[in-house]
């Protein structure tokens, strides 16, 4: 799993069968430092509660579909949790991980 920031919402009326009702969010994967890593991806929100600006963790690949109510769906990234805090053991910048207020 990787950390990511929710940066937008995706609305699609025409979707593959099985994706009805799925919340689709645009997320920016993050590096360990909190800096963006690569291009944003569209992830299905398995928590049903994530919103723009929030720090989340995302599971990729086949496991993403398992987070959905129906596990055999075409989903390759899923938000499986909303981060409250990254409790760093060293001084590697926990402040950068704080949730936006």
């Amino acid at each position, binding site marked *: 799993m*990787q950390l990511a920031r929710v940066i937008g919402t995706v609305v699609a009326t025409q979707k593959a069968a099985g994706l009805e009702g799925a919340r689709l969010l645009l997320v920016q994967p993050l590096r360990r430092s909190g800096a963006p890593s690569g291009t944003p991806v569209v992830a299905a929100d398995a928590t049903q509660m994530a919103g723009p600006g929030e720090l989340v963790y995302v599971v990729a690949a086949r496991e993403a579909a398992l987070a959905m109510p129906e596990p055999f769906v075409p989903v390759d990234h899923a938000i499986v*949790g909303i981060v409250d805090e990254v409790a760093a*053991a060293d001084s590697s910048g926990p402040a950068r991980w704080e949730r936006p207020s």
Partner: protein
Amino acid sequence: MKLARVAATVVSTINVPVYDNRKLLLCDLVSADGTPAGGYLIAVDTVGAGAGETVLLMDEGNSARQILAARDAPVRAVVVGIVDHVELASPGSGASPGAPASANRTTKAPAARRPRRSRGHGVQGAE
């Protein structure tokens, strides 16, 4: 499996039910000599690993689900062991069996920053 060092704990209240009461560790990937290899993973802890410890990281979904005994869990990365040390065969030694121990370089995992708790498989409660 991958070698990694535990850097932080990820705390979340809102998550998919399978993550309830499981500890999530943010692990920096390290190379064989213990230096950062670039990249990190968030993994479910199954061994009671703590910050600063070098761990064995499984990054494969079927194995993860087997370890967690959860057939349909959306989990891919799991911490499956705590590394005591890594022994590297020195270049040119051929790593032949029976070679003197001095021919090997040993990378000691850095000492943990806190005393270790009792281990054992199974899920550790959130702290």
